[in-house]
């Protein structure tokens, strides 16, 4: 059973077709890219998977379960986590809290437990705390645990956002342009980080990215979309030589 199965996915916004008959299958432990020109519908696909939008047509299955009709937090609870095109960390809460809150679905205690500070509450809070600290430590963020995101360099914020996504303990990690806004040193770090996450946590990573260096270095498979529809699918070598892809990005070379 594939981890993620998307079939005939279509999403219209009034007269605009943002996603057009999109199909993909992702298995375990893959590292795949989704690329395409600006406005191609890439983030819309992610938003559809997250449950932020509902498909106009088609279906999305995660581990065999149909995700249509699920609210975003329910989709996340199934094991899908993501980062956003512009970093969406909670700006008035420190890094540690940002990581803790993403574990909400695993909270495991009731409001009453919370008021009475029962053993159930204490155990689950400790578990949340432990996971948060372990993750921060593993990703080299222990020193900034009590910092507010806006006081951190952009590259570190991006790392925090990825850490937050990982605290969900996902089986599928969606990264939306993780290298956007990073300088070349940070991009190198990002490549190392993504590789490390992929190997350590054995998670499937699907990333939207414009920086070809990142894509070509990391990904074993690349899917290209334009105007909401797939125009190519293959290995990095295949995609680099694909005329349709080149045309989509650079325009027609025949005058």
């Amino acid at each position, binding site marked *: 059973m594939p981890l993620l199965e998307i079939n005939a996915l279509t999403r219209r916004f009034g007269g605009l077709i943002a996603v057009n008959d999109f199909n993909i299958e992702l298995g375990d432990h893959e590292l795949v890219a989704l690329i395409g020109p600006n406005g191609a519908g890439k983030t819309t696909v992610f938003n559809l998977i997250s449950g932020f939008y509902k498909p106009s047509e088609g279906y999305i299955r995660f581990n065999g379960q149909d995700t249509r009709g699920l609210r975003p937090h329910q989709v996340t609870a199934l094991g899908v986590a993501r980062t956003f095109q512009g970093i969406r960390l909670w700006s008035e809460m420190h890094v540690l809290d940002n990581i803790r*809150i993403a574990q909400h679905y695993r909270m495991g205690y009731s409001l009453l437990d919370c*008021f009475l500070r029962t053993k159930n509450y204490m155990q689950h809070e400790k578990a949340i705390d432990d996971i948060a600290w372990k993750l921060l430590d593993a990703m080299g963020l222990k020193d900034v645990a009590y910092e507010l995101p806006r006081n951190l360099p952009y590259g570190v914020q991006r790392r925090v956002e990825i850490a937050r996504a990982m605290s969900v303990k996902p089986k599928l990690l969606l990264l939306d342009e993780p290298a956007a806004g990073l300088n070349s040193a940070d991009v190198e770090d990002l490549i190392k980080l993504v590789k490390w996450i992929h190997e350590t946590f054995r998670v499937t990573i699907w990333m939207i990215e414009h920086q070809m260096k990142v894509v070509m270095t990391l990904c074993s498979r690349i899917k290209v979309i334009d105007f909401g529809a797939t125009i190519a699918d293959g290995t990095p070598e295949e995609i680099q030589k694909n005329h349709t892809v080149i045309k989509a990005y650079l325009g027609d070379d025949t005058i």
Partner: protein
Amino acid sequence: MQKKTFTIGIFAFMALIAGLAQADILSPYHISVLMFMGVNVILATSLNLVNGYMGEFSCGHGGFMCVGAYVSSVVTVLLFSKNQILGAPLLPASLAFLGFPLALLLGAAAASVAGLVVAIPSFKTRGDYLAIITLAANYIVISAINNMEIIGGPRGFMGMSATENGMKSVVDLPWMLIWVMLGTLFTVWLLRRFVTSTLGKGVPAICQDEIAAEIMSVDTNRIKLIAFMLSSGLAGLAGGLYAHVLGYVNPQSFDIMRSTEVMVMVYMGGMGSLSGATIAAVVYTVLMEALRFLDVWKWVVIPLLLILLMQFRPEGVMGNKELADLFPRLRKYYSFK
């Protein structure tokens, strides 16, 4: 060890106040100011949960206070008091110790359910639209009670003093003062436990980025429900205490002016700060008394103060910090974040 000291200290302080009241060192006026202070603390901290932590704009807190006031009053009057319409008391006054907290709880529960009126729309809308809904809800509650002759309509409802008298007849202590102090402590304790937990932290997460919260596994509808119902329920508790402190209620005391008063306290103290709301409530109560000589001008000066606050320190006295952030040594005595 030090945390226990803090708890013991608080209770000792409360016992001291009660003792001073009993010994008539504190005059009835002082006692009533203290009681209004407690009620205001409950109101401010409960509204702070919604308007501060969650960043909503609820303008109708008075309505929930009203629900709690009336429900608890009807219960105690039914049980312990003679009333023209409701009849003779059902229980002996000595059982007031059991009946009163029960009545308060029922009032709070009713107010909590009333909070659904605001909670459910909040799933889909925010900001200005929610402001209107809370406004309208406040008016609707008052309008409804104005039309209920059985509980006095616009003329008000009384008979609640029988409850305190009943308690006094068993043991002569300043019972309403004690109940208000307990209620205030309970509220702050409850809210503190909520906002320091991961569950409670979902509230500011929704405020700061609701979409991110939703996608990062926070069940936003559930959290909103909890926050609104907790807030309105505690407002109901405040209402119940208020009604029994005065021994009389009428719908007008819970209208938009009351809601505005509570908002003044919240914004003065700083949104998202529990200690801020508490301090602001205390200061506000004192201010109201100190400015009593101004009569009508009081309600010109107080809005002006808030306007000036908005101009020069809009984040309020505490911003979104707590006392322990400003005075780190206090952390020894109680942990907060």
